[in-house]
């Protein structure tokens, strides 16, 4: 890459991919994968998401690792970003909860309120 124009083309492409613009039903699953998340058990959670997405053949779901969001006390944190712009943050996720999120939230479209970050008793 040698020019700003090339950079802009790549940015446009990446942006569309990242935010699923143009798609009707894309879902991006962001698993907090900083040291705090890993220590709290993000790996089995991430693995569960990947394997469930594969086995259920959910082609419009992208599972990705992201850094620390800041709420380290409530890791592993998983954020579900949907193509309509809605964002849902689940916290203290385990592999069992991960399967539940796939089944209920991503496949059926029902948010599971009891695992939301906002519902956790401080």
């Amino acid at each position, binding site marked *: 890459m040698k020019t700003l124009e090339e950079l802009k083309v790549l940015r446009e492409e990446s942006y569309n991919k990242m*935010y699923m613009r143009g798609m009707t039903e894309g879902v991006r699953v962001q698993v907090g994968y900083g040291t705090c998340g890993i220590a709290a058990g993000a790996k089995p959670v991430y693995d569960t998401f990947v394997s469930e997405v594969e086995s259920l053949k959910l082609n419009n779901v992208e599972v990705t690792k*992201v850094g620390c969001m800041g709420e380290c006390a409530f890791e592993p944190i998983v954020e579900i970003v949907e193509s309509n712009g809605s964002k849902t943050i689940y916290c203290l996720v385990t592999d069992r909860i991960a399967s539940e999120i796939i089944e209920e939230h991503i496949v059926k479209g029902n948010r599971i309120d009891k695992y939301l970050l*906002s519902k956790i008793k401080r």
Partner: protein
Amino acid sequence: MLDKMHILICGGPECRNSKSKQIRDKFNEEIKRLNLGDDIKTILTGCFGLCALGPHVLIYPGEKLYSGITLDDIPEIVEQHIAKGKPVERLLFKGVFDRTKFKNRSELTFFAKQERVALRNCGIINPLEINEYIARDGYEALGTVVTTLTPQETIDEMKKSGLRGRGGGGFPTGLKWEFASKSVSDQKYVICNADEGDPGAFMDRAVLEGDPHSVLEAMAICGYAIGANTGYIYIRAEYPVAVERLQIAIDQARELELLGKNIFNSGFDFDIEIRLGAGAFVCGEETALIASIEGERGMPRKKPPYPAVKGLFGQPTNVNNVETFANVPPIFLKGSDWFKSIGTEKSPGTKVFALGGKIANTGLLEVPMGTTLREVIYEIGGGIPNKRKFKAAQTGGPSGGCITEESLDTPIDFDNLVKLGSMMGSGGMIVMDEDNCMVDVARFYLEFTVEESCGKCTPCREGTKRMLDILNRICEGNGTLEDLDVLERLANMIKDSSLCGLGQTAPNPVLSTLKHFRDEYEAHVIDKVCPAGVCSNLTKYLVLDNCIGCTKCARNCPVDAITGKVKEKHYINTDICISCGACKAACPVNAISTKPEDWEAYNG
């Protein structure tokens, strides 16, 4: 082109009843009518969580929330806010940050008061994918700088922004760059100081793990400004995840020719290498860090000459901290005026704090400078758990001091913290409540510095050890009043005569606790009592009258010192008691006390 503005329209079922589709169409129509371009996006989102007051429209940047708007309001919003950038105050939702109103939107309780500059991409992009960084304007700042600005203009912009080093000292970054650029040499270096060592601080790790490219981009910009072609990231091997992700990021940037020869066809070459440290606290000091990269023992040397004149391998070198670098790309993207508009006049921008200790939301937060400690602790941090009372907050880790309740409303910036006898440090913030013994806290930090002192200069090597001896004596109950004076004298001496920042600041925790909590020290040496009930030699446990007789304490006592019948008040046999505190932790009604005043009442 990235979108200039996002108009988020609540599309939840409640708001949909109030015509969110029509609202969006009306917005699009107005934007088209005024020909404002297609980089303004209208997006139907999920429920905002304030359904009674809908429909809502949220406009980024600025996070301006309009609520209860009608179709007739839209032309005004578009004309005033979107075209001219002036929000329509009349229609804005009042009290966006009111916690009670947003109880069901987690993001808003924790994130609303935050302003994320350094952490802008953390938790949002995949750090292993350079494309995601590029999607969020990555490397555009570098491209613009090397193709349109001269190195001097780059430095001038940096100076204008007023960014101050986030590693602790708060030295103006632009000035630092200028010093390095004025040193004449055919070889210069840029170093990123990622040797984060404060106990309780982890913001640099979060940036490196969550957004490594922002640091690489900023280092390249710095290299262009000062005329360096090589950068080193000095990071501790204790951060394996960050090291791995940095290496991946460097490889990806090289592949896209964003690092390497002739970047953006400007003739500017820059490449970055990683150097691992073994995790010594002193290597956060820049001359010790440089020695460590050179393969020497990590020990500081006398300054001047400063690294900007004679640094790595004897060449002019600019050293900046991770968080400082993470602030650089947004400054060049959005301009120094934008950056100056955040924070206070003398400390522009934001600061990341690592919140730990007795606090509900342990974690990282980024707030504009000038935010008060009260907002940080009670509003963003969620307050102190278990209904305990706030006692103090330690900022700046082992180099800083404690801030007490009466200073909670002081706006946090570099200068105010120094005035309070503490310092910004790298931004670790440990919250302590009434169960923390301040003498013990001071001892903890001093233990750390004694262990981390490199031993080069005597005041730090010997002096801190002697101070620790005295503190140990006090905590064991063998301290005298004279010890307090000796402690103070020794502390000031070490502060004045140590070679580097580690020694010069090591006595701070002792000095500031002595200043604010002298009564606690005196209780230890005169009354031989630890008021917080931490120092076990000086703690006696007592069951208060509000005991409900649940027997939990007796069952948890490891030495069977507690007797009592079910539903009756229990008693502790102080001859057997070993002051371990297990009963206090087990008590559901807080009926076990170590407070001296309770003992006085008991003894009559």
